[in-house]
């Protein structure tokens, strides 16, 4: 099967590339081994202190409501992290002291929303907190199960009964100016967080939970939908196993599901992520990139991969695939002319492109611009 561009990796970098190329008139295909890391999204796009208009347009086109407001985000453990661009339902504050009296609302039996950590962290900043736990019969059935109750299961129920939650909050509210809820709203119905905000007579802040991230799942779902609406192809649950390289250029790639039916394209983008998603693989003696065998920037001495202090920056998390200035992947030092690399697989080899979401978006856009200019 033939495409203009084949993108290996269906995460933020892959989706942004695919949507941008599709919009420019290309036929693209994205291959993704399972669901992407946006499922563990914090809600704010890291390393995006400046946001190009094309990025905002891309999100708007997909129906993803974001807001740009440099400041801090409230973390699930009640600390604050710098952020500038985030999803609409992930609040950003100019300073950590953003309220006077706060009502924290959670659900009985939900262990992944850390109310006591939140309260302690907020009180440290001079805000007073009251914690209320709702007992909803609709959630009782979930809790009976032998399985763990995660954000996604609660979110599915919440999409149906959010109005009841709003009523309960209204009844519980005293003189608090802010209500904090867990991010378990708006999984399928993206209007729910906004409507909750309208229904509660106080500011509503949605604070993160332990993954899976409901806003993250929603965001990637919208990005995938956008790609599909634009005519792109998303091959879910497939894995690129190797590449056919002819005369220094990628001719096609082989995938596990399609086997002998190779995917041919003029250009390829490798956005397979880092260790978690197996964009980079490791064994006791090496770190390597499994699809194209691209050069990886890493220390040959395994003992230097780690810092013994967990809290410190870990060297292995900075390793990544080597590229030239135009993000062509390097193979034995030589750039492969039609292969571009984007996203966290770059590690920290391109500090100019930032990290996290910022790296994914910026590198994707560099790759896209390169491809379209050819």
């Amino acid at each position, binding site marked *: *099967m033939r495409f203009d561009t084949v993108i290996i990796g269906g995460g933020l970098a892959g989706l942004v590339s695919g949507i941008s190329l599709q919009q420019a008139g290309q036929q693209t295909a994205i291959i993704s*081994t*399972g*669901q*992407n*890391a946006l*499922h*563990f999204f914090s809600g704010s796009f890291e390393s995006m202190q400046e946001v190009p208009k094309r990025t905002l347009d891309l999100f708007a086109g997909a129906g993803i409501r974001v807001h740009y407001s440099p400041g801090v985000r409230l973390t699930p453990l009640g600390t604050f992290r710098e952020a500038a661009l985030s999803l609409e339902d992930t609040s950003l504050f100019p300073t950590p002291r953003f309220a006077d009296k706060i009502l924290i609302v959670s659900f009985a039996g939900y262990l992944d929303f850390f109310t006591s950590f939140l309260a302690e962290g907020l009180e440290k900043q001079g805000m007073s907190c009251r914690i209320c736990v709702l007992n909803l019969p609709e959630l009782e*059935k*979930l*809790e*009976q*199960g*032998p*399985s*763990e109750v*995660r954000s*996604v*299961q609660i979110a*599915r129920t919440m999409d149906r009964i959010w109005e009841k939650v709003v009523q309960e909050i209204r009844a519980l509210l005293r003189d608090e100016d802010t209500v904090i809820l867990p991010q378990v709203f708006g999984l399928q119905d993206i209007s729910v967080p906004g409507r909750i905000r309208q229904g509660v007579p106080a500011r509503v802040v949605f604070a993160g939970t332990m*993954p*899976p991230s409901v806003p993250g*799942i929603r965001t990637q779902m919208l990005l995938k939908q956008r790609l*599909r609406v634009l005519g792109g*192809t998303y*091959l*879910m*649950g*497939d*894995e690129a196993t190797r590449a056919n390289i002819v005369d220094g250029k990628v001719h096609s790639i082989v*995938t*596990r*599901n*399609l*086997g*002998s*039916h190779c995917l041919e394209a003029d250009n390829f983008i490798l956005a397979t992520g880092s260790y*978690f*998603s*197996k964009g980079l693989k490791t*064994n*006791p*003696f090496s770190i390597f990139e499994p699809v194209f065998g691209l050069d990886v920037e890493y220390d040959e001495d395994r003992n230097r991969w780690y810092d013994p202090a967990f809290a410190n920056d870990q060297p292995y998390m900075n390793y990544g695939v080597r590229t030239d200035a135009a993000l062509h992947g390097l193979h034995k030092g030589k750039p492969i002319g039609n292969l571009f690399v984007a996203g966290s697989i770059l590690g920290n080899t391109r500090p100019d492109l930032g990290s996290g979401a910022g790296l994914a978006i910026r590198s994707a856009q560099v790759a896209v611009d390169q491809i379209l200019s050819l």
Partner: protein
Amino acid sequence: MKLQEYTESRHNFEECMKCTVCTAYCPVLQVNPLYPGPKQAGPDGERLRLKDPWFFNYALKYCMNCKRCEVACPSGVRVADLIQSARIRYDHTKPKLRDRILASTDLMGKLTRPVAPVVNGVTGLKIAKSAMDAMLKIDHRRTFPKYSGRSFEAWLRSHEKEQAAFPEQVAYFHGCYVNYNHPDLGKDLVKVLNALGVGVQLLDHEKCCGIAMITNGMSEQATRHAVHNIAVLKKAVVDKGLTVVTTSSSCTLTLREEYPNLLGVDNSAVHDSLLMATRYIYERLEAGAKFRFRTDFHKKIAYHVPCHMERLGWSIFSERLLRMIPGVEFTLLDSACCGIAGTYGFKKENYEASQAVGEPLFEQIRSVNPDIVACDCETCKWQIEMSAGYSVINPISILAQALAE
């Protein structure tokens, strides 16, 4: 291999990172919170079962084997295979009579064929359904598929000579559904392939692929079928050099993946030559073959990807073929499970869950309101026709309808 150069484990369960994404996408857990969920049933459970087989949880029987957990897993863990293979290894409960009946499609097909009209009439009667509900616990609300009076094999055999005359040949693994219930689909496939200059031949006595036996605790019987089918397939692939095409996504997945992964039956000699017909046809078109389509075929078609097709990753071929037909207004439905899960949805204890799982899909179909729902799986067809009230047709049959005479 150097020590620890790579690691291996049964169905890759060691690679599980505990991210729980599989559990988020399990259709069973969404309607039945008492199901442990794929992570607990699969990789979590495997470690405990290795400690003590007592940790095997009989609730694993609620797994529909839809494979969506595997499709969702970012680490490539074969979660569904872990669950099904645990059931095979640890659950030695003798299957009930009902389950044997539901799983023995070959046998049922052969028995009913001579009296098909009577059977079809009876299984539609309320009183018969109530009896089956009471005695066998087959839910009375479930509609039964109709049986054909003449098997597909008999029909194709009667056209053997004319098929053999075609310059190119393929073998066709037709499966129980085409053979006993809906030979028209097989005839449509023959028509479409003939239009490409390809003749169709039968395999040397195929048996039911065995998928229902695997999930109903009859893995020994399923293994006998597997061994037999691989031998038969080898005759076609290795001896005659033929490609073998299929029209059922579940049969295909079973022959290609479940045989080696769950039953330990080696199919490496034939694996790569087993293709869904839509993939085979697409590849021939890519290589230069052409269809002539009618100019008056105007249909609004919504394509539903069956779970096992999603797992195979081949819906792209069916989708592209349908889009090729001029006059087709094509919609790709959001990937969702229809809920029937083969024999699963026939069982009284599962019926409600089945319908609850499929409801979002039915709603979506109603909102799209197509003329036809296209789908490569026969049990999805029964489910959608019964629950949403729309006609469901296999993409091959749609192609056949759309071809110019």
